[in-house]
């Protein structure tokens, strides 16, 4: 079971320095497929090598929102893989012990790919010659082989060869570490109330993606964004009993929502103790405390009526 979990990479150089916490990413395509099925999309951010001059179609790394990451971990779909820096010492440690082994691995992989390519190219060449009516057995010039050698493809892989070793000798799941990392992420990039909004919408089968462009926290899709338009812009979570709703933000949010064909949604967590609770750290041993809170959220949608 634990093997099929999605692996979220989290680079933290110094656990005491919040600046060095880098947002969670995914580098594995199979993991991405699993995420899609769960209705978590993330944002692709890397250059797509064969269409490198555009920004619409991108490739790995897949950047995940903090709320997505927490939801995946709390529900047991994913595990956090901490890559703890400083990277220079981490890398030298790994390379000193495993350097030769890794080198051999990389070299073997490269040679194997070269062999396959050579074979493929020779077959293609032979087919071409056959079409022209030349006996391929006779054509065995060294020049041809040289050409093939120089046109072999060297690939840069998505995943890392070395970093898989930085976890050896550690227990696979360490709840206290995980909860500490999640708290670190939340305190850096969001807050727990925002997460509860996410969780509540997720339980209603919405797919969320970042909504800064629409003046909100998320935009919500009714299904996979590949096939469906988004319907909602969700604003940052309100403190349900205390926060005022600003009239100007109300009109601007609703007005913008009309123009982009989205409802403007505000929501809050209806927990009278929330102001005292939200700063508290969560413990992963009792994820129920967070998971059961999904009924405590309340949403309001605001629409420009365009009446009269």
């Amino acid at each position, binding site marked *: 079971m634990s093997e099929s979990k999605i692996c979220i990479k989290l680079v933290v150089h110094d656990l005491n320095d919040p600046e060095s916490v880098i947002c969670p990413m995914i580098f594995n395509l199979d993991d991405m497929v699993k995420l899609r099925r769960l209705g978590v999309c993330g944002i692709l951010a890397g250059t797509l090598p064969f269409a490198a001059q555009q920004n619409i179609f991108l490739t790995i790394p897949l950047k995940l929102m903090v709320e997505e990451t927490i939801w995946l971990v709390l529900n047991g779909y994913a595990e956090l893989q901490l890559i703890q820096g400083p990277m220079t010492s981490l890398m030298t440690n790994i390379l000193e012990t495993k350097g030769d082994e890794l080198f051999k691995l990389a070299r073997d992989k490269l040679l194997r790919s070269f062999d396959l390519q050579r074979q493929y190219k020779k077959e293609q060449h032979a087919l071409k010659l056959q079409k022209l009516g030349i006996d391929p057995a006779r054509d065995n010039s060294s020049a041809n082989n040289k050409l093939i050698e120089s046109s072999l493809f060297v690939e840069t892989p998505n995943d890392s*060869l070395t970093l898989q070793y930085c976890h050896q000798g550690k227990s696979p799941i360490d709840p206290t570490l995980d909860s500490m990392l999640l708290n670190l992420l939340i305190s*850096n*990039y969001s807050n727990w109330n925002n997460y509860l909004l996410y969780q509540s919408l997720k339980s209603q089968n919405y797919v969320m993606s970042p909504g800064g462009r*629409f003046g909100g926290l998320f935009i919500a899709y009714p*299904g996979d964004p590949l096939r469906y338009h988004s319907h909602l812009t969700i604003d940052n979570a309100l403190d349900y009993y205390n926060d005022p709703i600003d009239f100007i933000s109300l009109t601007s949010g609703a007005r913008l929502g009309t123009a982009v064909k989205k409802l403007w949604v505000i929501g809050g967590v209806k927990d009278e103790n929330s102001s005292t609770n939200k700063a508290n750290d969560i413990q992963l041993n009792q994820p129920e405390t967070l998971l059961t809170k999904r009924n405590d959220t309340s949403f309001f949608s605001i629409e420009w009526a365009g009446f009269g």
Partner: protein
Amino acid sequence: MADVGNITGKKSVKKPSKKSRNKTHKDNNITNELSNDNDDLIQQAADSDLEDDALGQDWSEIAKLNKKNAQLIIPKRGEKDYEPDGTNIQELLLYRAREAMFDALSNSARGGIVKNEVKAVYIPNKHSALVLNPKGTFLQTMGNVDNDDNFWLNFNEFLYLAERGTVIPYCLKLTSTSTDKLYEDDNLLPLGIEDIYAFFKTQHEMDQFSVFAHLKRLGFVVNRISAKDTTYYSNLKQNFLKSATHSVFKQITSLFISQKTNMFNALFYNPLHFKFIKYTSTPQIYRKLKHLIPHAWVPKNLYQLQDSKREFINQKSKGNFLELTYNVWKPQTNYKKKNTNLPDYQVLVYNKNDNKQHFPTNDDLKHIFASLNYKFEFLDEVDDEFEWDKHSYINGVSRSVVLKQTQKKKTNLSKPNIQSKPVKNQSKKFRPPSTTSHAKQMRRLKNGYRSFLLAVMDNGIISFLKISEADLGSEDVWYVPTTQSKIKKTQYQYKKRQSPKSNTTTDGTGKLV
């Protein structure tokens, strides 16, 4: 107070067109999607909705592309449905869309062939990469050579080029071997993209990289801002006496200016006022009213710019202000890495979700505006023949002089160097055709003066905002009837020809503030 008037939401920096035919075709696609310059806010919002849909694009088209024609077309986004209705056909379509997407992702091999392989070795303690056999077009705009003739890529360039497959990334297996064997093949361990991302030291650094890569993919030349950059401000060694007298002078005048408005207000609101002055026309009233509007002073020409820069340097305020990140140049053939011309844009990177960062405050903005150092586009408007090379300085020497000197060194080269001309042509090409005073005024009101781009990072989605200094108070926006009888006559005739109902607001300029 610095007036921050125009905050224009821009989805993306417009991509300037290139020469090659294939590429212009592609450009058309992009600019069609991006052309939202003159639209109002609602239109922009609607536009960005379209781009939102680009988040879930139609990957089936790009999956069909192979290496040969990938440069030709960027596929349009596909059709979408309103919401899932549980039918099989929707399931099938979704399945196909996902299939296409993951096919495209897994079939996009990154790298190069052995013959053209460029090896870049990451050196951890320098946080940059050494290129063993530098070759390729990227040399024109990226990297730098140190005193030992080693070619270095900074970390942004290294990762960007590795992602494209232009360089193959390596690290050293053993750092302690003898120097002649250090960069042998047997000591080079290939890196994956994941490894390189793990070398980012802070989230902010990664956000900056994302913006860098985004702009590079659009074809811009991007470099980090440094103190050694070419500047429009010549006096590196400041004359203390001059600056001192200047500041004293400035203080006196500013005192006078603030007093003047107060005095004027007192006079204006005094009922006796109307006993002395008779108002016979509307513009007369407007002109008087204008004095009542307080507005910030913004530099509008090169001398005022240099003045404000001098002031800024003198009173370089303490405190931690946000600093601009990148210089950005439009794609150009005569870009010189050593003696750059002034950039076309300057960019500040800001992560919206980072709780430790904040949107630029008023003080931040003042600081940023004062430290701006680019081809101020509003100067081009004042003077069509503005030559930036003469007005930009490298180490206190005018750039045109520096270029001449370097050219002299290269006299062996037979071809005469055609420089600065293409730039001029370019600037002419992008000028909108209408140059009536009214159009110019509208442009001033809309675009403002000094400006910079704010790249807002939201979990991997980048939005660009243009923030510019505005001066709305000093523009006369009302309609002024011309006093010359000749023109009056023609206008009268013109009105006659029009239908009688267009009476008071016929002229487009009849707009009041």
